[in-house]
């Protein structure tokens, strides 16, 4: 079978539709992951042992199991207990939860990297816990985290094809339906790969810029 440019032109609009959904899922998933990660990181620092242990174990569990199975769980099991989610919402929740457990580690490292002296200085200046966090710790902890967070968001972007398994009409699913209609796999699947490669390469450039701008996080 030969590569057919006419066919490529024909299926392009469908694939572009899929790209939009892919990007939308990535953006929403990133926002959710950023929030969930912060929640996990804070809960693990909590003085309440029961809370920090439970959240720690749950995070460990989510990180140790495949995203695909978690997506199935959210999409197929939750309706049994009366929570019926549209595919895209289920997908975004899955991505957000899964990557939230990774971003939690980034937050933890970022917060731990703020030198002890800063905490002590805040105490010496008689700042309340709330003031310490908002004025001293968070402004110093966030910038070094940005490249590492972006790294996980790029990784998440590359996992979005899994959403096709729960019937989200993103890029991969559009490509598969095109392929099944015309029984031509070369162009659609290769184009999906090309799309991902191009967007990933751009995001690597962006990441390098972020690293230069906000300083490298130690690995």
């Amino acid at each position, binding site marked *: 079978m030969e590569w057919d440019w006419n066919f490529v032109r024909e299926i392009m609009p469908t694939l572009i539709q899929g790209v939009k959904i892919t990007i939308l899922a990535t953006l929403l998933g990133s926002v959710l992951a950023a929030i969930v990660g912060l929640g996990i990181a804070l809960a693990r620092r909590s003085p309440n042992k029961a809370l920090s242990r439970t959240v720690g174990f749950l995070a460990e569990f989510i990180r140790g199991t*495949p995203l695909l199975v978690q997506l199935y769980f959210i999409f197929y099991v939750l309706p049994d207990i009366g929570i019926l989610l549209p595919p895209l919402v289920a997908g975004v929740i899955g991505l957000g939860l899964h990557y939230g457990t990774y971003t939690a580690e980034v937050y933890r490292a970022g917060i731990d990297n703020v030198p002890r002296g800063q905490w002590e200085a805040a105490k010496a200046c008689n700042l309340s816990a709330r003031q310490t966090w908002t004025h001293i710790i968070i402004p110093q902890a966030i910038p070094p985290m940005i490249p590492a967070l972006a790294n996980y968001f790029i990784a998440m972007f590359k996992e979005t094809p899994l959403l096709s398994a729960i019937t989200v009409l993103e890029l991969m699913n559009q490509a598969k339906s095109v392929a099944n209609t015309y029984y031509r796999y070369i162009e659609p699947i290769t184009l999906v*790969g090309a799309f991902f490669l191009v967007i*990933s390469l751009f995001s690597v450039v962006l990441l390098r810029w972020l690293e230069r701008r906000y300083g490298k996080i130690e690995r």
Partner: protein
Amino acid sequence: MTQWSGYFGLILQGALVTIELTLMGSVLALFMAFVAGMGRLSRFFVLRALATAYIEFFRGTSIFVQLFWAYFVLPFIGISLTPLQAGVLALGLNVGAYAAEVVRGAIQSIGREQYEACTALNLGRWQGMRHIILPQALLVMLPTFGNNAIELLKATAVVSLISLADLTFQAQVVRAQTGNTMVPFATILVIYFILALLISWGVRSLERRMARGLDGVRV
């Protein structure tokens, strides 16, 4: 309740396939990691360029797309793979690309003085690498290799989508036959988690073994 034991047998069969895939994928990944990781450090431009292209390509596109490409597109250009072969190939090459960067980083993390000592002892490039650099670098690589192996284990869930009867696939079968969604999916989540724990435990004990006798040599 007797019927559940039969279904559990199905899931165990799936677990065996998952373990098999993980092991074979890890072997290929390890091989590719050393070839590409050392390739990136080569004196020859062609080898460096090849290794970089391989690493960027496989890290830049999604594992899911690579798997579909291996399974659906390769047959059109005359290479037919069984689902198992396609799965091992895609998983091994993908994770190998990530692990190659680990190999490169670990080799580069060995201090200059070690290389100078090799020169002083009149060791050839290969001898120095084999007897001095790699034994030290391996210890640096191990923990990250463990994480990569867990990533590979999680990625094996994707092969269920090209009809390979792994854990996730068998859970779908059980779900289709019993109409129960909660039990099979919860079971396989636990099995995946146990497998991930086994990997991290195995890597940790391997690390302890290899670190023996190196106390005080490195941190």
